[in-house]
């Protein structure tokens, strides 16, 4: 045991000074066998760490209608509110599907223009008040007007939210919107608050001590620092949650989080993205490392509305100069698969290859650069470990093809400024989601009317709109394949590594999305907290 500790301390020290752990690669600690640990056990507490720059920040509180970081705080919101729907998958991440949770059933009517939701009977909020269609309609109305980045953006018809009966709510849209159900788990409409508690507490207090009908209730909430929850005895799923207490603790980054887990101060961490630490954790075997199936690949957005990428030859030169396979193998030991379109292996409608996708060809790139009389490019990305590594590698590859490249790392605000001023040339970003139509999906990066798109192509807009509207899944897949081919044929944006953050858990902790795979619906995986459990110490 002592030797094992020394081994992982040595590897940790290597990671501390920036040296990637060497050896194997790609393997990883075997997923713990929950079945071998016996049936799930009730009781115990769990502390989960969240990176303060993403899920560990909830500066505007946890009322889904007033929180502006709800997209990052899905994990806390699902623990408190449960959710009308949730994304589940088989243990290996396959067969992912959005399932009704507090909703009992749903119907898509009128070719996707109407959605009818039936709420489970006899549901109550943790304050004892009824969780019925009236409560759901009240929440939907608040959510639509929310400033949250996760507000639903439904194409609602006038008076489009109606209560049909005490258990049924109907949504009517001005155009077909079949992707509505798949969008629920990442939207603030998924989290239903108690209208009575909201009224009693007032909005300012409610966002600190929110009341829902999820598996846990709030005991203590220090914004962006500490959230202590306890078991909700009135939770509708019999015998769940397993845990008595769940604590979310913000922490300053992957490294301190990893060390805190090794020191036994916490039992889980969501969102590990520092690859050397991921590899160290996989090789040492002290923690369960669950690399989630990626859904949102990196993409090099090219601004086709301005020089130099308004010239298709410049875009083709970038495609020809880019070799994401080499980056994946060289920098990340093949940990992250390479995509040719806006879907990842864990997402819906994924296709590995796009017919006619421009291949890596340095000579062709040089030839195009020569035809253009030289090519100067400014490449930017948001500050993050993986993105910055990829950007540096791209700079090297492009320079080999004779392209002059300057790079810039942005904070969110400066990135937004670049897009708004249309001064940008190329940006390394992520695109897509588990369902390309949900969350910050593909339209955000490619639709003509998005301020964060470098493309103005009405035909592509039509394809993306039709894919989001269509009920038939096979037809949606065909439309998205066509959209991917159109992006490739016009050399709008080369796609790259499909990256997803990993979850870490200490020994004896089990749970869906934590120690099994569930594709991230946008960024982090939605852990099903009611089913997370801890084995009693031997």
């Amino acid at each position, binding site marked *: 045991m002592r030797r094992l500790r020394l081994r992982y301390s040595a590897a*940790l020290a290597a990671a501390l000074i920036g040296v990637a752990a060497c050896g194997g690669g790609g393997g990883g600690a075997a997923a713990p066998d929950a079945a071998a640990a016996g049936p799930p056990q009730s009781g115990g507490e769990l502390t989960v760490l969240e990176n303060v720059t993403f899920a560990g*920040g909830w500066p505007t509180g946890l009322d889904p209608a007033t929180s502006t970081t709800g997209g990052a705080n899905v994990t806390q919101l699902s623990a408190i509110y449960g959710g009308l729907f949730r994304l589940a998958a088989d243990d290996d991440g396959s067969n992912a599907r959005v399932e009704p949770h507090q909703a009992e059933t749903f119907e898509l009517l009128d070719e996707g223009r109407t959605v009818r939701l039936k709420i489970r009977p006899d549901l109550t909020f943790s304050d004892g008040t009824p969780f019925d269609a009236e409560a759901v309609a009240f929440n939907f109305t608040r959510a639509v007007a929310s400033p949250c980045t996760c507000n639903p953006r439904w194409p609602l018809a006038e008076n489009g939210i109606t209560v049909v009966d005490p258990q049924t709510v109907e949504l009517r849209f001005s155009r077909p919107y079949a992707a509505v159900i798949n969008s629920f788990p990442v939207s603030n409409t998924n989290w239903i608050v108690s209208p009575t508690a909201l009224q009693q507490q007032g909005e300012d207090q409610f966002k600190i001590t929110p009341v829902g009908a999820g598996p846990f209730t709030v005991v203590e909430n220090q914004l962006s620092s500490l959230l202590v929850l306890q078991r909700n005895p009135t939770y509708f799923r019999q015998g769940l949650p397993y845990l008595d207490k769940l604590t979310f*603790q913000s922490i*300053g980054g992957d490294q301190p989080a990893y060390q805190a887990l090794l020191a036994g101060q916490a039992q889980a961490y969501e969102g590990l993205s520092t690859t050397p630490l991921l590899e160290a954790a996989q090789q040492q075997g002290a923690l369960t490392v669950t690399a989630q199936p990626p859904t949102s690949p990196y993409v090099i957005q090219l601004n086709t509305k301005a020089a130099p990428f308004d010239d298709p030859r410049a875009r083709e030169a970038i495609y020809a100069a880019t070799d994401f396979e080499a980056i994946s193998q060289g920098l990340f030991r093949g940990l992250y698969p390479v995509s040719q379109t806006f879907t990842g292996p864990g997402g819906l409608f994924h296709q590995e290859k796009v017919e006619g996708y421009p291949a890596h060809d340095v000579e062709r790139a040089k030839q195009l650069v020569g035809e253009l009389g030289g090519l100067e490019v400014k490449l930017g990305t948001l500050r993050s470990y993986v993105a910055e590594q990829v950007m540096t590698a791209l700079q090297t590859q492009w320079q080999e093809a004779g392209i002059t490249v300057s790079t810039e790392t942005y904070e*969110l605000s400066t990135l*937004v400024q670049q897009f708004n001023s249309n001064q940008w040339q190329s940006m390394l970003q992520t695109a897509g989601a588990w369902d390309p139509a949900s969350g910050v999906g593909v339209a955000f990066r490619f639709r003509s009317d998005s*301020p964060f798109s470098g493309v103005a192509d009405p035909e592509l807009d039509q394809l993306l709109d039709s894919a989001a509207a269509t009920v038939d899944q096979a037809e949606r897949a065909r439309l998205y394949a066509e959209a991917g081919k159109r992006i490739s044929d016009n050399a709008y944006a080369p796609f790259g590594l499909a990256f997803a953050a990993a979850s870490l858990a200490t020994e004896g902790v089990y749970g869906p999305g934590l120690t099994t795979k569930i594709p991230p619906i946008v960024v982090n995986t939605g852990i099903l907290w009611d089913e997370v459990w801890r084995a009693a110490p031997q």
Partner: protein
Amino acid sequence: MTVPTATPAGTAPSDPRDDRAPGRLATVLASPGTRLVGKRVLLAVPIVVGVSILTFWVLNLIPGNAAQQLLGPEATAEQVRALEQELGLDQPGYVRYLDWLGAAVTGDLGTSLVSRQPVTALLGERLAVTGELVGLAFLVSLGLAVPVALLAAYRPGRMFDRVSMLVSITGLSVANYVLALLLVLLFAVELALFPAIGFVPLSQSVAGNLHSMALPVAAISFPLFCFYTRFLRGDLVDQLQGEDYITTARAKGIGPGQVLLRHAFRNSSFGLITVVGLNLGTLIGGTVIVEQIFALPGIGQLMLQAVNTRDFVVVQACVLVFAVVAVLANLVADLLYAVLDPRIRYGSR
């Protein structure tokens, strides 16, 4: 021992019927110490206001504002404008600053743009954590640095001196965030002696509190200890080797220990006090990083989050607290000079 008193026994000095009281008050007000404090306090006001203006100006230079940060990249320009209006961010900078300043002088530090919680409440929760961290770091670093420096200076060039200087140089070469992570690795992961994260309030358990603060305090105080040790030891050696008053003291037959403690150290402590006062800024900077690593709910953590969300009201308040603390620390340093050196007292008269 008889303590001389200015008032006859049995007469309360604050007795309003005592016609000598105003005279005594005038004496106290006219005393060099009071005048020194008064001067420094008057100087502190423009310093604090200047710091707040500078902070406000710098925050305005950073691209983006709270509205944009809150709404994220998906927000439309209209949504951002609407929220800017709601938060008052559409007002000119000087108007927003003067509004803030006007409220601040009455003790109202405003409401967070992001959480909509009163800033005084947010600070109140966290002040105790950072205050304890800074206080303990000072105590530990000075408490260790002074004896080590004295011992090293007592016999310069010997083994203890060499080892202490080696440790000091090593400590000064390591950034405190690296040191923090290494401390966790050794004392939390490897030896399991201290917790890697978390904070136990004093009200909950004194022992638990000190246990939870051990590594954060060590991470902050070790570089300070190294700096103070190196500084004080160097100054002491200079004093002992080159000053006439030391030669005189030795000529009088005073023992080397007494010379070191009562003469050299007394003189060297001026420099140390200056350095300690000036180092407060570094110490506060250290808390911002260390609170992140150890997940301590202090002001440093709050300020970093507020900077990230461009919550200038909270940032202003945090900087104000830090500025006031820095000014107070320097005031205490000035007063200590006066206590230690009669020339300063006389000079202020």
